[in-house]
């Protein structure tokens, strides 16, 4: 796809995202599902309050969450040269949930403290997965990294389980249970304000460094010969994208599959080069998550946890892509 075509497609995608965003302001169960008539915004004080204080922060968070998960997924897949990784697969999401739980139980419930703790444990989980995969003695790089990620994820989710067990069932447990399901129903403007800097830093860095991401997806010796500072550029990219993911996980809970499936779809549509596939993945991921959240809050009388919906849709799409057009994983390396 050449640049002119891509620019046109981007404008189309941005407009689509804008329409989804604006429409989502009116989608919901007040006053009756599935739709709030726009005139009520003028007439009904409660409707106005609801849109301003509940739906808007929630929508913006869904947008940032989808964009961030997709950007991190793209970056992780290319930096690890492995099309099958996403933040959840490398233990980052479970690590972040564990960090958030530790903070709720023992540290502090201030959003910033929860986010920092989530970020710390998210990065720790990534580092553990990485080092473990280098120590495994069999299998190719793709398999080793997936295995390590599964083990580290299990470790942290066991940790979360223990924390749940010792948590106070009346005060702490409900808040903890929320991490495992994932959802945006409790998001406030205050949460959003604390997440925003992390999310924007991650998104901007991934966007600005997208050409470098291409280089990092090559063999080490080739990337070096093309002027890449391998260690430094990898650390910068991983730190900012994982921090963004972990900070958002601290307010949304574990939202799986978006970071795996959206980068695949984006590369399928716009080609492998991160120059186009990263910005496109951000737009697609933002739209996907907003739509999933719309469904989460309108389909049933009670809210469906967002993480369950994204997993169901994501895994379904993944299976479809695998059997219909094939997701190529090279066995070497």
């Amino acid at each position, binding site marked *: 796809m050449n640049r002119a075509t891509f620019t046109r497609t981007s404008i189309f995608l941005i407009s689509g995202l804008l329409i989804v965003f604006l429409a989502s302001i009116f989608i919901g169960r007040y006053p009756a599902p599935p739709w709030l008539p726009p005139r009520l915004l003028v007439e009904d004080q409660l409707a106005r309050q609801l849109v301003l204080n509940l739906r808007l922060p929630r929508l913006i968070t869904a947008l940032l969450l989808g964009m961030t998960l997709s950007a991190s997924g793209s970056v992780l897949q290319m930096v690890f*040269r*492995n099309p099958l990784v996403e933040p959840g697969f490398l233990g980052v999401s479970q690590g972040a949930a564990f960090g958030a739980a530790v903070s709720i139980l023992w540290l502090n419930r201030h959003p910033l403290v929860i986010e920092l703790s989530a970020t710390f444990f998210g990065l720790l989980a990534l580092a553990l997965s990485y080092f473990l995969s280098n120590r495994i003695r069999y299998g190719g790089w793709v398999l080793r990294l997936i295995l390590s990620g599964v083990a580290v994820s299990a470790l942290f989710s066991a940790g979360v389980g223990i924390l749940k067990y010792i948590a106070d069932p009346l005060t702490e447990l409900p808040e903890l249970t929320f991490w495992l399901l994932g959802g945006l129903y409790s998001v406030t403007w205050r949460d959003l304000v604390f997440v925003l800097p992390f999310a924007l830093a991650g998104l901007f860095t991934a966007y600005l460094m997208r050409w470098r991401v*291409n280089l990092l*997806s090559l*063999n080490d010796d080739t990337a070096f*010969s093309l*002027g890449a500072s391998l260690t430094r550029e990898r650390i910068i990219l991983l730190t900012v994208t994982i921090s963004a993911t972990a900070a958002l996980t601290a307010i949304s809970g574990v939202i799986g599959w978006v970071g795996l499936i959206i980068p695949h779809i984006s590369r399928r549509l716009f080609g492998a080069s991160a120059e186009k596939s990263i910005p496109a993945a951000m737009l697609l991921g933002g739209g996907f998550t907003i739509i999933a959240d719309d469904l989460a809050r309108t389909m049933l009388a009670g809210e469906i946890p967002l993480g369950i919906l994204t997993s169901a849709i994501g895994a379904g799409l993944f299976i479809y892509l695998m059997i219909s057009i094939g997701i*190529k994983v090279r066995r070497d390396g």
Partner: protein
Amino acid sequence: MDNILALEQVYFRYGEDDPKVLSDLSLDIPGSKVTAILGPNGTGKTTLLHILLGLLKPYNGEVRIAGKPHREYSKRTLSQTIGLVPQFESIPFNFSVFEYVLLGRSPYLKPFQLPGEEDILITEDALVSAGISHLSQKAVTEISGGERQLVHISRVLAQQTRILLLDEPTAHLDLENQNRILTLLKGMANKGVTAVLTTHDPNAAIFAADHFVLMNKGKIAAQGEINQVITPENLTEIYRTPIRVEKTNGFTMVVMDKNQ
């Protein structure tokens, strides 16, 4: 200054306790020529290329490019000076040939910069030079081994470096593709580019090179012109198998000697 690349008493090992991979290696590589580094598998040829590239640092000795020590080059200048075609390059994503070759322009881009019109023109030229402009929009994962090697070479051509390092560029290729690649390298040398290739196949080296380096067990066994290096004695000793060197109509050919 004739020798564009020079190594002086270079020693290298991968870890403190590991055995030496290269020891007391001194080497002069002439500019605007094709130099072939020959030797059996596992003799340190790839390590030597990585040292010339600057990816590995010798624990003793010095590498000089155009008379200046390696450490005096910035990363950016270095990547504008030396290009590499590695022996194995796995590309796990479906880049198009064009997108992949365009990556060769990276040394000229600032950290957040994207390639511009000029980079696109240079990339198109590189594809034409390698004779693969018809593959431009194909995915790199979907072309043949020979085509893929030409794609890698196009990428270093787009990089526009004065020095090309190629690790076993003709391994696993049929004769037609070997011929294409080696002829392309000879053409580059005529235009002033210095090409250094490793190979375990003496005949490929003879076909393409002007200067020969014979390596054995991390040391230089011989270096110089064809008559000094490609001798039955040298090759028999290093490949540990009886070898004859035949000359007919001005062509030199290396064959295994069945009669011994």
